[in-house]
């Protein structure tokens, strides 16, 4: 059997998340080179030996981590919690990186003056079914997180409606009665006459550096990993 490959670090290939990731590693004396302007999905890591750079779209990084094809990766907690079943057994957060903040929330129309909490929503669900003969619909693309949150909160009588974008608009279009979505500012919600329930914060997510527990690690890569995590633990240089 051949020695497993060198330590692989997955980094978002473009956008603000990429820029912030490069800056975060740079502050710790680790350079992520040729990731800034190149249209090729290739680059390398400087300032520390034995780490291969893998540029990926942010949405693919959870899957690559779960499959053990990369050892380390930068992606949001929201994507990991949503996309990787039993993620606690398969990934370990190495560092929460302090950017890419995104809150997953449950919001209802602002005109629902009688609904302030998730418990209110549960009652509204029952009344809605009695009135309309169908369950109240909640639009989201975060199906697993939504289902888990509502189950823990004891809300059972609802239907999830898939919405991959412009989720704030679905209530206006009568495609759903409530939404579960990421919000960073709340302005879009207000513009669509939606309000967050007082106990409706499902996950306060931020960009996080993850370690894949299932990725095969040879002795050399294990030493490189120790060195890298030690460097990160020591904090910004």
């Amino acid at each position: 059997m051949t020695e497993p490959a060198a330590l692989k670090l997955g980094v978002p290939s473009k956008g603000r998340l990429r820029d912030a990731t490069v800056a975060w590693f740079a502050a710790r004396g680790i350079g992520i080179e040729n990731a800034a302007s190149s249209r090729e999905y290739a680059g390398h890591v400087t300032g520390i030996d034995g780490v291969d750079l893998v540029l990926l779209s942010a949405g693919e990084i959870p899957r690559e981590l779960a499959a053990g094809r990369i050892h380390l990766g930068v992606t949001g907690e929201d994507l990991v919690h949503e996309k990787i079943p039993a993620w606690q057994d398969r990934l370990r957060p190495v560092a929460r990186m302090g950017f890419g903040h995104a809150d997953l929330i449950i919001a209802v129309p602002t005109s629902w003056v009688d609904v302030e909490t998730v418990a209110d929503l549960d009652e509204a669900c029952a009344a809605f079914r009695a009135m309309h003969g169908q369950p109240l619909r909640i639009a989201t693309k975060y199906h697993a997180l939504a289902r888990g949150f509502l189950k823990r909160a004891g809300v059972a009588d609802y239907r999830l409606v898939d919405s991959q974008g412009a989720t704030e608009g679905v209530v206006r279009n009568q495609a759903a009665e409530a939404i579960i979505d990421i919000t960073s500012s709340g302005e879009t919600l207000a513009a669509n006459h939606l309000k967050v329930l007082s106990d409706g914060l499902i996950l306060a997510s931020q960009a996080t550096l993850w370690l894949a527990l299932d990725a095969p690690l040879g002795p050399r890569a294990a030493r490189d990993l120790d060195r890298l995590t030690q460097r990160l633990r020591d904090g910004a240089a």
Partner: protein
Amino acid sequence: MAAHRAYLPGARMGSGLSALADELARIAGVFAASGAETVEPAALQPADLLLNLYGEDIRARAYLTDDPVDGALVLRPDFTVPVALLHRASGALSPARYTYQGPIWRRQAPGSARPTEYLQAGVESFGDPDPIAADADMFVLIRDALGGAVPLRAMTGDLSVALAAIRGLEAPDRWVAALRRHIWRPARFRAVLEGYGPDRPAPSESRAALLAAVAAGPDALDAHIVAAAPEAGLRARAEIAGRATALAQDAAAPALARARIAFVEAALSVRGPSGDALAALRALAADAPAAAAAAMSPVLDAMARRLDALDARGVDAAALPFDASFGRALEYYDGFTFEFCAVGAAHLPPLGGGGRYDALTMRLGLGDGSGAMRAVGGVVRPEAMLAAARGAAS
């Protein structure tokens, strides 16, 4: 691996399969001898109905797929609803008893060792004129179908105890409805119940403003809603005003006395041999306010008659383990519930079990419209039975 099946390595071919086929034939014989008609529901069932009955959570527990013409479909996660639908298709006006066997499919949590496909064989009985006798008959029938190969430990419960305790609260209808809705979610149930007690929190500022608007009359309430935001979505202003008015009634209603809440919690905590449990419930009811005692009385009388009926069928009913909260994890049961585990086989699921589900048949539209068609059912798990027998023999 290809020949493995739930709890039985290698039983998809050869002698393992023959042994299973023999066991299935024996079970079918027991159920047929009870007068049940054999039915064979489709494996793929319409998903909308199950989603409407069980809510979104069914997606986490069942395999859904879709068809370009038939829409959303689900691999049956149990037989109860499919068999009830067959009964409805037959006209569903007269009593009937059906038996079935076949695989069911359940999605399991990642890392779970539970099987995603396993066999069930069972009986569903609709419209029995004497539900107490039918409960006792079903218990004995499932016990008999399990055969005598392994020592069994039974557990029983009765959801009607919880339902009666709730009725006995003399709470506003909305509170009773909310508690009934959450009876299968014990943690939420408890939170809702405590929320009606003397410790209920003071209304938030915005809730206080809403209650003031209700008090000021319908026009003021309407203005309050309109001022908040333009209407959005299907839930109309009248529905919002309706619930606001109900919230004001809730706020004006006296909180439930601590002793009332304690009674419900105590009744739901009763467990022990059925004879002792019945005595404990009677003692609780005797100390409870008159309304609670009156609500409990017919349910406890029925429990006593059920124990007599079990005795008459040769079961040592007084010693039968009982837990007033048993069955609360199994949504749709609303009366007697029971299960049988193999003694000393903690790695195996219950080998069989069942219960009464009168309310489900009403939601499915069974009966003549004048009320629910009573229903009780039970299943056994043939693969787990053989695995238990093998363990007991070795």
